[in-house]
Protein backbone atom coordinates (compact mmCIF):
# COMPACT_ATOMS: atom_id res chain seq x y z
CA UNK A 1 0.00 0.00 0.00
CA UNK A 2 1.23 3.48 -0.83
CA UNK A 3 2.35 5.58 2.11
CA UNK A 4 0.06 8.42 3.13
CA UNK A 5 1.63 9.84 6.27
CA UNK A 6 5.38 9.86 5.79
CA UNK A 7 7.79 10.70 8.59
CA UNK A 8 11.43 10.86 7.44
CA UNK A 9 14.65 10.97 9.45
CA UNK A 10 13.04 12.75 12.35
CA UNK A 11 14.99 13.75 15.44
CA UNK A 12 13.47 15.54 18.37
CA UNK A 13 14.69 16.44 21.84
CA UNK A 14 13.18 18.31 24.78
CA UNK A 15 16.61 18.75 26.36
CA UNK A 16 20.13 18.17 25.05
CA UNK A 17 19.49 14.43 24.95
CA UNK A 18 17.68 13.02 21.90
CA UNK A 19 14.17 11.89 22.74
CA UNK A 20 13.05 10.73 19.30
CA UNK A 21 15.91 9.33 17.29
CA UNK A 22 16.08 9.00 13.50
CA UNK A 23 12.41 8.13 13.15
CA UNK A 24 11.03 6.84 9.85
CA UNK A 25 7.39 5.81 9.57
CA UNK A 26 5.20 5.31 6.51
CA UNK A 27 1.52 4.93 7.24
CA UNK A 28 -0.75 3.72 4.43
CA UNK A 29 -3.95 5.57 3.61
CA UNK A 30 -7.21 4.27 5.05
CA UNK A 31 -5.45 2.13 7.63
CA UNK A 32 -5.46 1.91 11.42
CA UNK A 33 -1.96 1.97 12.85
CA UNK A 34 -1.27 1.37 16.53
CA UNK A 35 1.62 3.06 18.27
CA UNK A 36 2.33 0.74 21.19
CA UNK A 37 4.89 1.27 23.91
CA UNK A 38 5.40 1.88 27.61
CA UNK A 39 4.73 5.23 29.29
CA UNK A 40 7.37 7.81 28.47
CA UNK A 41 8.46 6.03 25.29
CA UNK A 42 7.49 9.03 23.12
CA UNK A 43 4.10 8.03 21.70
CA UNK A 44 2.37 11.31 22.58
CA UNK A 45 5.41 13.25 21.38
CA UNK A 46 5.03 11.69 17.92
CA UNK A 47 1.33 12.64 17.85
CA UNK A 48 2.24 16.20 18.83
CA UNK A 49 4.94 16.35 16.17
CA UNK A 50 2.41 15.33 13.51
CA UNK A 51 -0.05 17.91 14.87
CA UNK A 52 2.59 20.62 14.67
CA UNK A 53 2.37 21.27 18.42
CA UNK A 54 6.06 20.38 18.56
CA UNK A 55 8.70 21.19 15.96
CA UNK A 56 11.33 18.56 15.14
CA UNK A 57 15.01 19.56 15.16
CA UNK A 58 15.53 17.46 12.02
CA UNK A 59 13.41 15.56 9.53
CA UNK A 60 10.05 16.08 7.91
CA UNK A 61 6.45 14.96 8.02
CA UNK A 62 4.41 14.88 4.84
CA UNK A 63 0.89 13.82 4.15
CA UNK A 64 0.18 12.52 0.67
CA UNK A 65 3.64 13.80 -0.24
CA UNK A 66 2.71 17.37 0.59
CA UNK A 67 3.01 19.79 3.44
CA UNK A 68 -0.25 19.84 5.32
CA UNK A 69 -2.39 21.90 7.61
CA UNK A 70 -3.51 20.71 11.03
CA UNK A 71 -7.07 21.45 9.88
CA UNK A 72 -6.96 18.10 8.02
CA UNK A 73 -6.39 16.33 11.32
CA UNK A 74 -8.66 15.26 14.14
CA UNK A 75 -7.04 14.97 17.55
CA UNK A 76 -8.14 13.34 20.75
CA UNK A 77 -5.68 14.18 23.56
CA UNK A 78 -4.94 12.00 26.57
CA UNK A 79 -6.61 14.41 28.97
CA UNK A 80 -10.27 15.05 28.21
CA UNK A 81 -9.75 18.72 27.20
CA UNK A 82 -13.46 19.50 27.47
CA UNK A 83 -15.34 22.50 28.78
CA UNK A 84 -16.68 21.04 32.02
CA UNK A 85 -19.11 23.93 32.67
CA UNK A 86 -20.80 23.40 29.30
CA UNK A 87 -23.24 20.69 28.30
CA UNK A 88 -22.35 17.84 25.94
CA UNK A 89 -24.17 19.46 23.00
CA UNK A 90 -22.70 22.90 23.78
CA UNK A 91 -19.20 21.41 23.63
CA UNK A 92 -19.96 19.87 20.24
CA UNK A 93 -21.50 23.13 19.01
CA UNK A 94 -18.52 25.27 20.10
CA UNK A 95 -16.01 22.93 18.41
CA UNK A 96 -18.20 22.77 15.28
CA UNK A 97 -18.31 26.57 15.07
CA UNK A 98 -14.56 26.84 15.62
CA UNK A 99 -14.15 24.46 12.67
CA UNK A 100 -16.29 26.77 10.53
CA UNK A 101 -19.38 24.58 10.62
CA UNK A 102 -21.87 27.39 10.95
CA UNK A 103 -25.21 26.12 9.65
CA UNK A 104 -27.36 25.19 12.64
CA UNK A 105 -28.93 22.20 10.89
CA UNK A 106 -25.47 20.88 9.95
CA UNK A 107 -24.18 21.32 13.50
CA UNK A 108 -27.24 19.52 14.86
CA UNK A 109 -26.94 16.66 12.36
CA UNK A 110 -23.26 16.07 13.10
CA UNK A 111 -23.84 16.30 16.84
CA UNK A 112 -26.76 13.89 16.58
CA UNK A 113 -24.75 11.34 14.55
CA UNK A 114 -21.73 11.54 16.83
CA UNK A 115 -23.82 11.31 19.99
CA UNK A 116 -25.41 8.17 18.58
CA UNK A 117 -21.99 6.74 17.84
CA UNK A 118 -20.66 7.39 21.34
CA UNK A 119 -23.99 6.38 22.89
CA UNK A 120 -24.51 9.65 24.70
CA UNK A 121 -27.68 10.85 22.97
CA UNK A 122 -29.57 10.82 26.26
CA UNK A 123 -26.89 13.01 27.88
CA UNK A 124 -26.88 15.80 25.29
CA UNK A 125 -28.13 18.41 27.76
CA UNK A 126 -26.03 17.14 30.68
CA UNK A 127 -23.15 19.31 31.91
CA UNK A 128 -19.80 17.66 31.23
CA UNK A 129 -18.65 17.83 34.86
CA UNK A 130 -21.57 15.54 35.76
CA UNK A 131 -20.39 12.82 33.34
CA UNK A 132 -18.30 9.78 34.30
CA UNK A 133 -14.69 9.48 33.11
CA UNK A 134 -15.65 7.03 30.36
CA UNK A 135 -18.41 9.34 29.09
CA UNK A 136 -15.98 12.26 28.97
CA UNK A 137 -13.57 10.06 27.02
CA UNK A 138 -16.28 9.30 24.49
CA UNK A 139 -17.25 12.95 24.13
CA UNK A 140 -13.60 13.84 23.62
CA UNK A 141 -13.47 11.33 20.77
CA UNK A 142 -16.63 12.78 19.21
CA UNK A 143 -15.03 16.24 19.23
CA UNK A 144 -11.97 14.83 17.46
CA UNK A 145 -14.28 13.69 14.65
CA UNK A 146 -16.47 16.80 14.45
CA UNK A 147 -14.63 18.28 11.43
CA UNK A 148 -14.71 15.03 9.41
CA UNK A 149 -10.88 14.84 9.35
CA UNK A 150 -8.90 12.79 6.84
CA UNK A 151 -6.57 11.66 9.59
CA UNK A 152 -7.51 10.85 13.18
CA UNK A 153 -4.82 10.97 15.85
CA UNK A 154 -6.10 9.30 18.99
CA UNK A 155 -3.99 9.39 22.13
CA UNK A 156 -5.04 6.49 24.38
CA UNK A 157 -8.67 6.58 23.16
CA UNK A 158 -9.87 3.45 24.91
CA UNK A 159 -8.77 4.25 28.47
CA UNK A 160 -11.75 4.05 30.81
CA UNK A 161 -14.05 2.54 28.19
CA UNK A 162 -15.82 -0.75 28.80
CA UNK A 163 -15.18 -3.72 26.45
CA UNK A 164 -18.60 -3.48 24.75
CA UNK A 165 -18.17 0.16 23.84
CA UNK A 166 -14.56 -0.51 22.80
CA UNK A 167 -15.90 -3.04 20.28
CA UNK A 168 -18.35 -0.48 18.93
CA UNK A 169 -15.53 2.11 18.64
CA UNK A 170 -13.47 -0.34 16.65
CA UNK A 171 -16.39 -1.11 14.35
CA UNK A 172 -16.63 2.62 13.71
CA UNK A 173 -12.87 2.96 13.17
CA UNK A 174 -13.05 0.24 10.52
CA UNK A 175 -15.97 2.04 8.91
CA UNK A 176 -13.90 5.24 8.90
CA UNK A 177 -11.02 3.32 7.27
CA UNK A 178 -13.42 2.19 4.51
CA UNK A 179 -14.28 5.87 4.03
CA UNK A 180 -10.56 6.57 3.44
CA UNK A 181 -9.86 7.95 6.90
CA UNK A 182 -6.41 7.11 8.27
CA UNK A 183 -6.14 6.46 12.01
CA UNK A 184 -3.09 6.55 14.26
CA UNK A 185 -3.77 5.29 17.79
CA UNK A 186 -1.51 5.20 20.81
CA UNK A 187 -2.34 2.56 23.35
CA UNK A 188 -1.08 0.33 26.12
CA UNK A 189 -3.83 -2.19 25.44
CA UNK A 190 -2.82 -5.20 23.32
CA UNK A 191 -6.48 -5.81 22.46
CA UNK A 192 -6.41 -2.48 20.62
CA UNK A 193 -3.14 -3.39 18.92
CA UNK A 194 -4.64 -6.66 17.63
CA UNK A 195 -7.37 -4.73 15.86
CA UNK A 196 -4.95 -2.42 14.04
CA UNK A 197 -3.88 -3.10 10.46
CA UNK A 198 -0.29 -2.46 11.49
CA UNK A 199 1.45 -2.02 14.82
CA UNK A 200 4.49 0.04 15.71
CA UNK A 201 6.31 -1.14 18.83
CA UNK A 202 8.03 1.91 20.20
CA UNK A 203 10.59 2.03 23.02
CA UNK A 204 12.69 4.97 24.24
CA UNK A 205 12.06 7.05 21.15
CA UNK A 206 12.93 4.28 18.71
CA UNK A 207 10.86 1.89 16.60
CA UNK A 208 11.71 -1.70 17.48
CA UNK A 209 9.14 -3.33 15.18
CA UNK A 210 6.59 -2.26 12.58
CA UNK A 211 4.43 -4.96 11.08
CA UNK A 212 0.97 -6.47 11.03
CA UNK A 213 -0.17 -8.00 14.34
CA UNK A 214 -0.31 -11.45 12.75
CA UNK A 215 3.29 -11.19 11.49
CA UNK A 216 4.54 -9.89 14.82
CA UNK A 217 3.17 -12.96 16.58
CA UNK A 218 4.21 -15.33 13.76
CA UNK A 219 7.84 -14.19 13.40
CA UNK A 220 8.47 -14.04 17.14
CA UNK A 221 6.95 -17.52 17.50
CA UNK A 222 4.87 -16.39 20.43
CA UNK A 223 1.21 -16.92 21.32
CA UNK A 224 -0.04 -13.34 21.39
CA UNK A 225 0.94 -9.73 20.87
CA UNK A 226 1.79 -9.19 24.55
CA UNK A 227 4.32 -12.00 24.43
CA UNK A 228 5.57 -10.76 21.08
CA UNK A 229 6.23 -7.33 22.58
CA UNK A 230 8.27 -8.82 25.46
CA UNK A 231 10.16 -11.04 23.02
CA UNK A 232 11.02 -8.10 20.75
CA UNK A 233 12.13 -5.93 23.69
CA UNK A 234 14.51 -8.69 24.80
CA UNK A 235 15.69 -10.16 21.51
CA UNK A 236 14.82 -7.70 18.73
CA UNK A 237 12.69 -8.35 15.66
CA UNK A 238 13.42 -9.89 12.29
CA UNK A 239 10.80 -10.73 9.69
Amino acid at each position, binding site marked *: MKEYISIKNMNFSYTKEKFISDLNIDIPKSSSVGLIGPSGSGKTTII*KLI*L*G*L*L*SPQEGSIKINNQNYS*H*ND*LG*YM*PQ*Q*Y*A*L*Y*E*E*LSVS*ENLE*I*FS*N*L*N*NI*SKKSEVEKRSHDLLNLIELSDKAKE*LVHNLSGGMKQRLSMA*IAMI*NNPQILLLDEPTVGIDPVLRESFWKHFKKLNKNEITILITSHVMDDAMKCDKVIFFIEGTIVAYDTPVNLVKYTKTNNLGEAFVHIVNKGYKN
Partner: protein
Amino acid sequence: MILRIFSIAKLVLLKMRRDKRSIGLVVIAPLVIMTLITFIFNEKPGTLQRVAPAIISVFTFLFTFLLTGITFIRERASGTLERIMLTKLKAHELLIGYFLGFFIFALIQATIVTTFVLFMIDYSIDSTLINLIVIIFLSALCSVNAGIMFSSLAQNEFQMVQFIPLFFAPQIFLAGIFVPVQDMPRTLEIISKFLPISYAFNSTKLTIINKVSIEEIIFDLTILFVFSAIFIIASSLVVNSQKNNK
Protein backbone atom coordinates in the same frame (compact mmCIF):
# COMPACT_ATOMS: atom_id res chain seq x y z
CA MET B 1 -13.97 34.76 11.38
CA ILE B 2 -16.96 36.46 13.01
CA LEU B 3 -18.47 33.06 13.86
CA ARG B 4 -15.26 31.92 15.53
CA ILE B 5 -14.87 35.16 17.51
CA PHE B 6 -18.47 35.03 18.74
CA SER B 7 -18.10 31.34 19.60
CA ILE B 8 -15.22 32.19 21.93
CA ALA B 9 -17.14 35.12 23.45
CA LYS B 10 -20.16 32.84 23.92
CA LEU B 11 -17.91 30.20 25.48
CA VAL B 12 -16.56 32.69 28.03
CA LEU B 13 -20.07 33.93 28.87
CA LEU B 14 -21.50 30.41 29.21
CA LYS B 15 -18.64 29.31 31.45
CA MET B 16 -19.05 32.35 33.68
CA ARG B 17 -22.85 32.07 33.78
CA ARG B 18 -22.62 28.45 34.99
CA ASP B 19 -20.06 29.36 37.63
CA LYS B 20 -22.45 31.07 40.04
CA ARG B 21 -19.86 31.56 42.77
CA SER B 22 -17.55 33.43 40.38
CA ILE B 23 -20.46 35.56 39.16
CA GLY B 24 -21.23 36.38 42.80
CA LEU B 25 -17.60 37.31 43.42
CA VAL B 26 -17.48 39.48 40.29
CA VAL B 27 -20.22 41.63 41.82
CA ILE B 28 -19.58 41.20 45.54
CA ALA B 29 -15.79 41.73 45.59
CA PRO B 30 -15.88 45.32 44.24
CA LEU B 31 -18.93 46.10 46.40
CA VAL B 32 -17.20 44.93 49.59
CA ILE B 33 -13.97 46.75 48.77
CA MET B 34 -15.76 49.96 47.84
CA THR B 35 -17.89 49.87 50.99
CA LEU B 36 -14.74 49.46 53.06
CA ILE B 37 -13.05 52.35 51.28
CA THR B 38 -16.13 54.51 51.77
CA PHE B 39 -16.15 53.85 55.52
CA ILE B 40 -12.45 54.70 55.72
CA PHE B 41 -12.80 58.02 53.88
CA ASN B 42 -16.37 58.90 54.88
CA GLU B 43 -15.30 61.51 57.40
CA LYS B 44 -12.80 63.04 55.02
CA PRO B 45 -14.64 63.87 51.77
CA GLY B 46 -11.63 65.82 50.46
CA THR B 47 -9.43 62.73 50.77
CA LEU B 48 -12.01 60.55 49.01
CA GLN B 49 -12.11 63.10 46.18
CA ARG B 50 -8.31 62.79 45.89
CA VAL B 51 -8.16 59.00 45.97
CA ALA B 52 -11.22 58.46 43.72
CA PRO B 53 -9.23 58.47 40.43
CA ALA B 54 -6.74 56.00 41.90
CA ILE B 55 -9.51 53.68 43.06
CA ILE B 56 -11.22 53.70 39.66
CA SER B 57 -8.06 53.15 37.61
CA VAL B 58 -6.36 50.58 39.88
CA PHE B 59 -9.42 48.41 40.57
CA THR B 60 -10.54 48.38 36.93
CA PHE B 61 -7.11 47.02 36.04
CA LEU B 62 -6.84 44.63 38.97
CA PHE B 63 -10.21 42.86 38.68
CA THR B 64 -9.98 42.34 34.92
CA PHE B 65 -6.36 41.19 35.09
CA LEU B 66 -7.25 38.57 37.70
CA LEU B 67 -10.36 37.35 35.93
CA THR B 68 -8.63 36.86 32.58
CA GLY B 69 -5.30 35.59 33.88
CA ILE B 70 -6.79 32.85 36.04
CA THR B 71 -9.33 31.76 33.41
CA PHE B 72 -6.67 31.57 30.74
CA ILE B 73 -4.31 29.53 32.87
CA ARG B 74 -7.14 27.07 33.59
CA GLU B 75 -7.74 26.88 29.84
CA ARG B 76 -4.09 25.93 29.32
CA ALA B 77 -3.94 23.45 32.21
CA SER B 78 -7.06 21.58 31.10
CA GLY B 79 -5.73 21.16 27.54
CA THR B 80 -8.66 23.03 25.97
CA LEU B 81 -6.45 25.89 24.75
CA GLU B 82 -4.27 23.45 22.81
CA ARG B 83 -7.38 21.80 21.44
CA ILE B 84 -9.16 24.94 20.26
CA MET B 85 -5.95 26.18 18.66
CA LEU B 86 -5.98 23.02 16.51
CA THR B 87 -9.31 24.12 15.00
CA LYS B 88 -9.53 26.88 12.41
CA LEU B 89 -9.38 29.48 15.17
CA LYS B 90 -6.59 32.09 14.83
CA ALA B 91 -4.73 33.55 17.81
CA HIS B 92 -6.13 37.06 17.26
CA GLU B 93 -9.68 35.68 17.00
CA LEU B 94 -9.22 33.92 20.33
CA LEU B 95 -8.05 37.16 21.93
CA ILE B 96 -10.87 39.25 20.48
CA GLY B 97 -13.40 36.63 21.58
CA TYR B 98 -11.91 36.54 25.06
CA PHE B 99 -11.94 40.30 25.23
CA LEU B 100 -15.61 40.48 24.18
CA GLY B 101 -16.60 37.83 26.71
CA PHE B 102 -14.64 39.30 29.60
CA PHE B 103 -15.32 42.89 28.73
CA ILE B 104 -18.90 42.45 29.91
CA PHE B 105 -17.69 41.30 33.33
CA ALA B 106 -14.94 43.93 33.39
CA LEU B 107 -17.59 46.51 32.60
CA ILE B 108 -19.85 45.27 35.42
CA GLN B 109 -16.99 45.55 37.91
CA ALA B 110 -15.78 48.89 36.59
CA THR B 111 -19.33 50.24 36.63
CA ILE B 112 -19.80 49.17 40.26
CA VAL B 113 -16.50 50.78 41.31
CA THR B 114 -17.04 53.96 39.29
CA THR B 115 -20.68 54.43 40.26
CA PHE B 116 -19.83 53.92 43.92
CA VAL B 117 -16.97 56.42 43.80
CA LEU B 118 -18.85 59.02 41.75
CA PHE B 119 -21.81 58.77 44.10
CA MET B 120 -19.61 59.23 47.18
CA ILE B 121 -17.88 62.32 45.81
CA ASP B 122 -21.17 63.85 44.56
CA TYR B 123 -19.95 63.81 40.98
CA SER B 124 -22.36 65.69 38.77
CA ILE B 125 -23.07 63.77 35.56
CA ASP B 126 -22.07 65.80 32.51
CA SER B 127 -20.24 65.40 29.20
CA THR B 128 -17.04 64.24 30.99
CA LEU B 129 -18.74 60.91 31.69
CA ILE B 130 -17.76 59.90 28.16
CA ASN B 131 -14.10 60.35 29.22
CA LEU B 132 -14.58 57.81 32.01
CA ILE B 133 -16.28 55.34 29.65
CA VAL B 134 -13.36 55.56 27.18
CA ILE B 135 -10.79 55.24 30.00
CA ILE B 136 -12.55 52.17 31.40
CA PHE B 137 -12.81 50.60 27.93
CA LEU B 138 -9.09 51.09 27.22
CA SER B 139 -8.06 49.99 30.73
CA ALA B 140 -10.10 46.79 30.35
CA LEU B 141 -8.60 46.16 26.88
CA CYS B 142 -5.12 46.63 28.30
CA SER B 143 -5.81 44.50 31.34
CA VAL B 144 -7.46 41.55 29.53
CA ASN B 145 -4.42 41.19 27.29
CA ALA B 146 -1.94 41.76 30.12
CA GLY B 147 -3.74 38.97 32.00
CA ILE B 148 -3.34 36.60 29.04
CA MET B 149 0.30 37.56 28.57
CA PHE B 150 1.22 37.05 32.23
CA SER B 151 -0.73 33.79 32.43
CA SER B 152 1.69 32.33 29.90
CA LEU B 153 4.58 32.96 32.27
CA ALA B 154 2.84 31.15 35.13
CA GLN B 155 2.44 27.38 35.31
CA ASN B 156 -0.49 27.36 37.73
CA GLU B 157 -3.03 29.61 39.48
CA PHE B 158 -0.73 30.03 42.49
CA GLN B 159 2.07 31.45 40.35
CA MET B 160 -0.44 33.66 38.54
CA VAL B 161 -1.48 35.20 41.86
CA GLN B 162 2.21 35.94 42.57
CA PHE B 163 2.29 38.07 39.44
CA ILE B 164 -0.27 40.46 40.94
CA PRO B 165 2.13 42.28 43.27
CA LEU B 166 4.85 42.09 40.61
CA PHE B 167 2.63 43.72 37.99
CA PHE B 168 0.65 46.08 40.21
CA ALA B 169 2.94 47.26 43.02
CA PRO B 170 5.30 49.30 40.80
CA GLN B 171 2.32 50.75 38.96
CA ILE B 172 0.51 51.78 42.15
CA PHE B 173 3.61 53.37 43.68
CA LEU B 174 4.88 55.02 40.52
CA ALA B 175 1.62 56.15 38.87
CA GLY B 176 1.55 59.37 40.89
CA ILE B 177 -1.12 58.18 43.31
CA PHE B 178 0.92 58.76 46.48
CA VAL B 179 3.55 61.19 45.22
CA PRO B 180 3.14 63.33 42.08
CA VAL B 181 5.26 61.89 39.26
CA GLN B 182 7.16 65.17 38.79
CA ASP B 183 8.31 65.04 42.46
CA MET B 184 9.85 61.58 42.07
CA PRO B 185 13.56 60.95 41.41
CA ARG B 186 14.28 61.21 37.67
CA THR B 187 14.74 57.43 37.23
CA LEU B 188 11.38 56.64 38.81
CA GLU B 189 9.76 59.39 36.77
CA ILE B 190 11.05 57.73 33.58
CA ILE B 191 9.88 54.28 34.75
CA SER B 192 6.39 55.64 35.49
CA LYS B 193 6.09 56.67 31.83
CA PHE B 194 6.24 52.98 30.88
CA LEU B 195 3.38 51.92 33.14
CA PRO B 196 -0.21 51.92 31.81
CA ILE B 197 -1.88 52.75 35.14
CA SER B 198 0.03 56.08 35.17
CA TYR B 199 -2.00 57.17 32.14
CA ALA B 200 -5.28 55.66 33.35
CA PHE B 201 -4.83 57.43 36.69
CA ASN B 202 -3.79 60.76 35.19
CA SER B 203 -6.70 60.89 32.74
CA THR B 204 -9.22 59.81 35.41
CA LYS B 205 -7.84 62.46 37.79
CA LEU B 206 -8.09 65.22 35.17
CA THR B 207 -11.63 64.10 34.32
CA ILE B 208 -12.97 63.86 37.87
CA ILE B 209 -11.15 66.71 39.55
CA ASN B 210 -10.52 69.20 36.73
CA LYS B 211 -13.53 68.20 34.59
CA VAL B 212 -11.45 68.42 31.41
CA SER B 213 -12.82 67.62 27.95
CA ILE B 214 -11.80 64.45 26.09
CA GLU B 215 -9.40 66.46 23.86
CA GLU B 216 -7.33 67.33 26.91
CA ILE B 217 -6.73 63.68 27.85
CA ILE B 218 -6.27 62.45 24.29
CA PHE B 219 -2.51 61.91 24.89
CA ASP B 220 -3.17 59.63 27.90
CA LEU B 221 -5.86 57.76 25.97
CA THR B 222 -3.53 57.29 22.99
CA ILE B 223 -0.80 55.89 25.21
CA LEU B 224 -3.31 53.55 26.86
CA PHE B 225 -4.30 52.40 23.39
CA VAL B 226 -0.63 51.84 22.50
CA PHE B 227 -0.17 49.76 25.66
CA SER B 228 -3.28 47.76 24.70
CA ALA B 229 -1.80 47.16 21.24
CA ILE B 230 1.52 46.03 22.77
CA PHE B 231 -0.25 43.63 25.14
CA ILE B 232 -2.44 42.33 22.27
CA ILE B 233 0.64 41.62 20.12
CA ALA B 234 2.48 40.04 23.08
CA SER B 235 -0.48 37.85 24.01
CA SER B 236 -0.95 36.84 20.34
CA LEU B 237 2.67 35.71 20.30
CA VAL B 238 2.06 33.82 23.53
CA VAL B 239 -0.98 32.02 22.13
CA ASN B 240 0.87 31.22 18.91
CA SER B 241 3.76 29.82 20.92
CA GLN B 242 1.27 27.50 22.67
CA LYS B 243 0.27 26.37 19.21
CA ASN B 244 3.71 25.87 17.74
CA ASN B 245 6.11 25.00 20.49
CA LYS B 246 4.19 23.38 23.31
